[in-house]
């Protein structure tokens, strides 16, 4: 990416134009990125021949045969893609494409490959207490310094039992053991017992199996079951496994368990989470061994467990540190304030990275504010975000408009939507927003027309089909609504067996006849066939129906 490109979240999901622009600077990357595009288009497109491939019933074969997806420049949420200018194309492929045998190597090699990128990425300002410890360590004789246990992070896996195949269990209960036996879901044992295997499981969507594997990998680090409260040496890699584990617990909405294990890390402020704590291993290196994503995840977690105010405090504390880092950078010193001179281009890269992280953290604050029903705060932040240089103003205005709709302020929503649509030609998102506006005005027929227009632009878009079905129901066309959803599933089961769509369809089945349960079971059969995992909400809906 060119240096003068303004930082924004848009670049993380950049459109293809910017991507092409990027590659022009580095011609050797062009073919790689083009193939990446082909691949990502392939996986997202709904062309019929592609579907045949997708409809293979066995999850294992479908997923394991897919190579680890090459880096998709549109998919990163915080990365400053600019930093990639320092890698050659072969670097990128080796980084993510080739299997890595020894986990530690990844960190060490990337460390040596570009210390600047790592410094930028891992920079964090330790709190005063941690700083005192670092000073004490430097002053003390090598390895003679002992630290109070209170200052240590001593995590252990708390989840007692392995997570089973939830879908398989429900299939067993509802459809019988014979059908359950036919299900081939990817288990932790089916992959190599390392980081690569873990990624395979995540890629396959077998999140529960992946969580099981993290427990095994953590026990190698002496942080497995029952190991909490024992001092351990942390490494970037062990913390990455923890991050993956807790991220997946959140993704599977196992919030209480995630929270219990996350609590052992506090807010990643203890000294042993920093490189400075281990001068004998990392030399003079400084910064956080825990990644920024981990920090953000831990800050977000309380809001999923009914404690949004705690999240808000933590998120604002992260924002405050980011602001400090940005201030340090603009004053020409290192991120954490140490008086080390950074080259101008490196400094610009760093600012870009931290601007991106700031925006992402603000998104989390917005999500938290919505849970808190503090809509004024959410609106204020959306406004601030859209004023930032290079912000995806149109997408933000559209989101702001929908927030107004959610709370019932129709005129406010209209203003936002019309402002958004003036920023470019009418696109799918605008049409859907107009449909939602029509619903707010209790005009489901007009809404249907808008969704239909949107559907003409993206015929395979599941969200639009779903919204059309909802309009049909409110218009008194239950059967047609069901047909739309069923067609969506049969034409693209992998995408359409989505939590909210399944919930909608189950609601319609319940209305349609007393045979809803039979239809739900056939839905369950499809989920068992295509999905490695399914949210509990869906399973309860499918399963709960059986008892009534």
């Amino acid at each position, binding site marked *: 990416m060119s240096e003068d490109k303004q930082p924004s979240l848009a670049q993380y999901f950049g459109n293809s134009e910017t991507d092409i622009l990027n590659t022009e600077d580095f011609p050797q990357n062009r073919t790689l990125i083009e193939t990446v595009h082909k691949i990502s288009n392939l996986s997202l497109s709904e062309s019929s021949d592609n579907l045949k491939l997708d409809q293979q019933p066995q999850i294992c074969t479908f997923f394991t045969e897919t190579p680890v997806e090459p880096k998709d420049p549109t998919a990163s949420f915080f990365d400053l893609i600019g930093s990639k200018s320092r890698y050659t194309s072969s670097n990128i492929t080796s980084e993510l494409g080739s299997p890595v045998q020894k986990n530690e190597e990844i960190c060490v090699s990337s460390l040596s490959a570009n210390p600047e990128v790592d410094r930028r990425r891992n920079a964090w300002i330790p709190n005063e207490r941690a700083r005192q410890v670092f000073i004490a360590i430097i002053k003390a004789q090598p390895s003679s310094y002992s630290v109070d246990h209170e200052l240590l992070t001593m995590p252990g896996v708390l989840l007692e039992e392995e997570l089973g195949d939830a879908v398989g269990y429900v299939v067993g209960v509802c459809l019988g053991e014979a059908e359950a036996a036919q299900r081939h879901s990817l288990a932790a044992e089916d992959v190599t017992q390392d980081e690569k295997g873990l990624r395979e499981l995540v890629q396959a969507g077998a999140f529960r199996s992946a969580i099981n594997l993290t427990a095994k990998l953590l026990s190698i680090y002496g942080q497995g079951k029952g190991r909490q409260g024992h001092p351990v040496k942390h490494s970037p890699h062990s913390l990455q496994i923890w991050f993956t584990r807790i991220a997946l617990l959140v993704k599977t909405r196992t919030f209480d368990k995630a929270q219990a294990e996350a609590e052992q890390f506090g807010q990643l402020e203890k000294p042993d989470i920093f490189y400075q704590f281990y001068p004998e291993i990392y030399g003079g290196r400084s910064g956080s061994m825990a990644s920024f994503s981990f920090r953000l995840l831990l800050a977000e977690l309380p809001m999923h467990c009914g404690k949004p105010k705690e999240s808000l405090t933590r998120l604002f504390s992260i924002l405050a540190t980011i602001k400090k880092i940005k201030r340090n950078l603009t004053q020409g010193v290192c991120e954490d304030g140490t008086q080390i001179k950074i080259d101008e281009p490196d400094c610009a890269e760093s600012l870009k990275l931290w601007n991106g992280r700031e925006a992402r953290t603000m998104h989390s604050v917005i999500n938290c504010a919505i849970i808190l029903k503090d809509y004024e705060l959410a609106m204020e932040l959306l406004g601030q975000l859209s004023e930032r240089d290079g912000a995806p103003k149109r997408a933000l205005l559209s989101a702001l408009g*929908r927030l107004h709709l959610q709370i019932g302020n129709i005129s406010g929503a209209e203003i936002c939507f019309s402002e958004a649509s003036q920023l470019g030609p009418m696109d799918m998102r605008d049409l859907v927003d107009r449909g939602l506006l029509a619903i707010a005005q209790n005009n489901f027929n007009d809404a249907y027309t808008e969704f239909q227009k949107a559907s003409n632009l993206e015929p395979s878009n599941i969200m639009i089909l779903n919204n059309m079905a909802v309009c049909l129901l409110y218009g008194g066309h239950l059967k047609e609504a069901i047909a739309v959803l069923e067609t969506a599933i049969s034409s693209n089961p992998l995408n359409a067996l989505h939590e909210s769509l399944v919930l909608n369809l189950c609601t319609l089945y319940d209305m349609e006849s007393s045979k809803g349960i039979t239809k739900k079971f056939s839905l369950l059969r499809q989920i068992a066939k295509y999905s490695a995992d399914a949210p509990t909400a869906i399973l309860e809906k499918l399963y709960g129906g059986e008892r009534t």
Partner: protein
Amino acid sequence: MEPEEHLLALKVMRLTRPTLASPLPVTCDSKDLPGNLLNNALQQDPAVVKGSETISIGQFLLLPQNPVNIYLGETFSSYVCVFSETKQIVYNINVKVDLQTASQKICLAHDPPTAQLNNDETVNVVIHHEVKEIGAHILVCEVTYQNSAGVPMSFRKFFKIHVLKPLDVKTKFYNAENDDVYLEAQVKNITSGPICLEKVALDASHLFNVTCLNKTPSNESIFGNITLLHTQNISQYLYCLTPNEKLTSDFKSLSGATNIGKLDIVWRSNLGEKGRLQTCQLQRMSPEYVDIRLSIIELPNFVNLEELFTFKCKLMNNGERSIDFVLYLENTKEIAWCGISGRKLDTLQPHSHQILEFKCIPLVPGLKTLSGIKLVDTLLKRTYSYNELGQIYVVFSDQ
């Protein structure tokens, strides 16, 4: 109900507004262990909005999953679905939906009968009704049909609905000396969630002209762009009502004008769910009705200490006889009158008024009350004292 087996069955679903679903954003950096897998998973989620993936304000409509309260003034909408539970063909299906309230029975749907219903077919009725009563309502769905042998059959199903009060409206009135009436209205949200007040307006009775005092001089709402009211929160409105001219000239009818008007309130909640309420006719306490009335028509707000100032009053005779008055001015510690005390005024005819001009000098700085004016009706020897006629703020002169 009779336990007999029916060939048809009926289900009802309340159609409240759908909600907007969005995925839970779990993301990471491409250098983190999961690489871009989590980000890709999020991006491929059908409920994600491109361009704002990590903001949980989606476009994906989710049907209501939990029962939602219904409030007075909202529209009760439901989907009534009648379906066949038999392989036989059923004839002349008639679906009638009524709503039984505490006071009346309202017919919500009575479509012409469906000639025949095959297995796997449904009769669909969508009903809408703006609820106008608080308390228990019963939705009565009656299905009549004939089985394949032509035997008429029928069954009824009942659904109980409890209509709650959405808003608590409190009003206060102030009768001003110049005959204006100020209305203060407090609107409290007693629903379980936040609402947006789309419209709060005073629909005044024909006796008064309304000025809404909830706008800045540049015509913007003092509440900002939206009037978002969280649960248990109160929004306060102020209106000024000026009696129309007919009324001001006749004090008796002005005093009798107690009907102020009605407050018209429109609110919206989730995804535009609308409710509207109109209060009953608001009544003010009628101002005291007196034959003789002295009221200020011109008075400066600020006056300089120890400098002469002038103010004007209107003396009205609402009675049926002409009156001769003697005007007395009594000095107080704060104000010295300038003029003749004990002066006889011109005769005041019934239903007429005259304008009196007073001059005085303030002696003490600060907020002071005009007092010390006395009128004596020479015929009845009746004295009218005015000790709280108006207020002035006495300041030190600039010089």
